[in-house]
C-alpha cells in the first residue's frame, strides 16, 4: 500500500498531507518564538531606567534587510505561481532570486552587522562615579529634558589589551557621537544613519567601571536577546535557503517532469515556512532596531 494524499487532497479535510504537517510545524514555531518574545518583554519590563539601550543598531542596514526578506517572500510566491502555470523556466529564475535574497540577508547579518557590534565597546559607569564623567554622559541635560539617565559610555576601544590585562588601569575610548557631545539636542534621539565613533579620545578608569565589554551577548539583556533571537531567526533563514537550493537543483526538475503538482506542493510548503520566517522578522525589526 502506498501512502495516500501525498499530492491529491483528502476529501473531508480538503488538504494534502504536507500542508497539514507544515501548518502544525508552524504552530509549534509560533510557540517557540512566543517563548522568546515573552522573555524579551520580561527582560525589557524588568530593566531599570537607562538599562535598555536604544539606537545601537544600524537602521538603514536593518531596513534594507527587511526589504530583502519581503522581496524574497514575493519571489517565492511567484515561483510557486509559475509552477502552477507550468512555467519551469520562470520558476527557476524566481527560485534563484529567492535563494540570493536569503544569502544576501545572511551575509549582511554575519559579515557586516554582527562583526560591527562585536567591535564596539561599552562601559557601564558605577553609580557613584557618574558625576565624574558628566562631560560624556550629560545626565543633567537628560534629567532636565525628562530623558532616561545615561549610564554607559560607548565607542571604539583604542587599547583592546585593557580588556584582558589587569595592569592597564584605564580604557581609552574613541567616543560615540552621543558621548562626545552629550548635551547637543540632536543626540536626544538616536540617529537614523549610522554615525561612526568620533576622534575624541576619552580615558575611563577601570575602578569607575561597573562592567565593560564589547557588544557581545554578554553585554546586556538587550544584546543577549538581540543575538539569541536574530541568531535563531538566522538559522531558520539558513534552513529555508538550503531547502530552496534543493528545490532549485536539477534533482527537482526530474520530479517536475514526473509530477509537476508534487513539486508545486513542495514549493508551497517551503514557501509557507519562508513567509513565516519573514513574518517573524517583521516583528524583530522594530523591536530591536527602532524601539
Amino acid at each position: 500500500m502506498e501512502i495516500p494524499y501525498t499530492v491529491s487532497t483528502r476529501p473531508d479535510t480538503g488538504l494534502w498531507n504536507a500542508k497539514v504537517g507544515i501548518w502544525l510545524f508552524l504552530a509549534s514555531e509560533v510557540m517557540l518564538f512566543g517563548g522568546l518574545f515573552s522573555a524579551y518583554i520580561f527582560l525589557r519590563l524588568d530593566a531599570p531606567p537607562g538599562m535598555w539601550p536604544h539606537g545601537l543598531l544600524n537602521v538603514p542596514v536593518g531596513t534594507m534587510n527587511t526589504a530583502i526578506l519581503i522581496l524574497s517572500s514575493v519571489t517565492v510566491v511567484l515561483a510557486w505561481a509559475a509552477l502552477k502555470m507550468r512555467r519551469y523556466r520562470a520558476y527557476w529564475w524566481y527560485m534563484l532570486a529567492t535563494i540570493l535574497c536569503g544569502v544576501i540577508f545572511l551575509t549582511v547579518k554575519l559579515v557586516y552587522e554582527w562583526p560591527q557590534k562585536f567591535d564596539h565597546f561599552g562601559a557601564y559607569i558605577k553609580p557613584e562615579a557618574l558625576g565624574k564623567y558628566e562631560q560624556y554622559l550629560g545626565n543633567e541635560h537628560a534629567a532636565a529634558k525628562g530623558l532616561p539617565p545615561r549610564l554607559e559610555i560607548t565607542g571604539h576601544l583604542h587599547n583592546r589589551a585593557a580588556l584582558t590585562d589587569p595592569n592597564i588601569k584605564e580604557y581609552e575610548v574613541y567616543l560615540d557621537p552621543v558621548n562626545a557631545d552629550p548635551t547637543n539636542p540632536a543626540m536626544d534621539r538616536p540617529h537614523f544613519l549610522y554615525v561612526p565613533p568620533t576622534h575624541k579620545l576619552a580615558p575611563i578608569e577601570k575602578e569607575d567601571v561597573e562592567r565593560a565589554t564589547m557588544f557581545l551577548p554578554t553585554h546586556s539583556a538587550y544584546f543577549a536577546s538581540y543575538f539569541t533571537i536574530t541568531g535563531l531567526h538566522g538559522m531558520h533563514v539558513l534552513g529555508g535557503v538550503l531547502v530552496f537550493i534543493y528545490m532549485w537543483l536539477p534533482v527537482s526538475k526530474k520530479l517536475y517532469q514526473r509530477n509537476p503538482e508534487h513539486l508545486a506542493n513542495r514549493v508551497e510548503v517551503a514557501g509557507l515556512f519562508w513567509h513565516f520566517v519573514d513574518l517573524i522578522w517583521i516583528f524583530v525589526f522594530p523591536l530591536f532596531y527602532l524601539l
Partner: protein
Amino acid sequence: MNNPPDVSQDPKEYEEYAHNVQKHVRGYLMVGALLLVFTGITVALSYVDFGARKANIAVAMLVATLKAGMVAAIFMHLAAEKRLIYRILIFTGFFVLGLFWLIYLAWYDYPVFH
C-alpha cells in the same frame, strides 16, 4: 487554488486556469509593494515622538501586526484556507496569548517585587 487541469487534454481550460493564477500574481506583487511601503512607514514613525515610548511601541506593533496580517492572509493564503488549519491556528493563538498574558499577570502580581 485548485490543481491545474491537464494541459494535454484541454488547452482552453488550462488557459483559463493560467489566467486565473496570473490574476493572483498581480495581487502578490501589490502586497509586496505595500509591505515595502509599510516598512518605510514603520521606520519613519519611530522617529516621530508620540509623547511616551509606550505609545511608539504600540504604534510600531500595530503596523507590524498589519504587515504580518498581510503576509499571513495573502502570501500564506490564510484569507481562504481550509477549516482544519484555522482550527489549529486558533488554538495556537490562544495558547501563545495565554503564555504572554499569564506570565505578565503573574509577574505583576508578585507582591515581593512591588
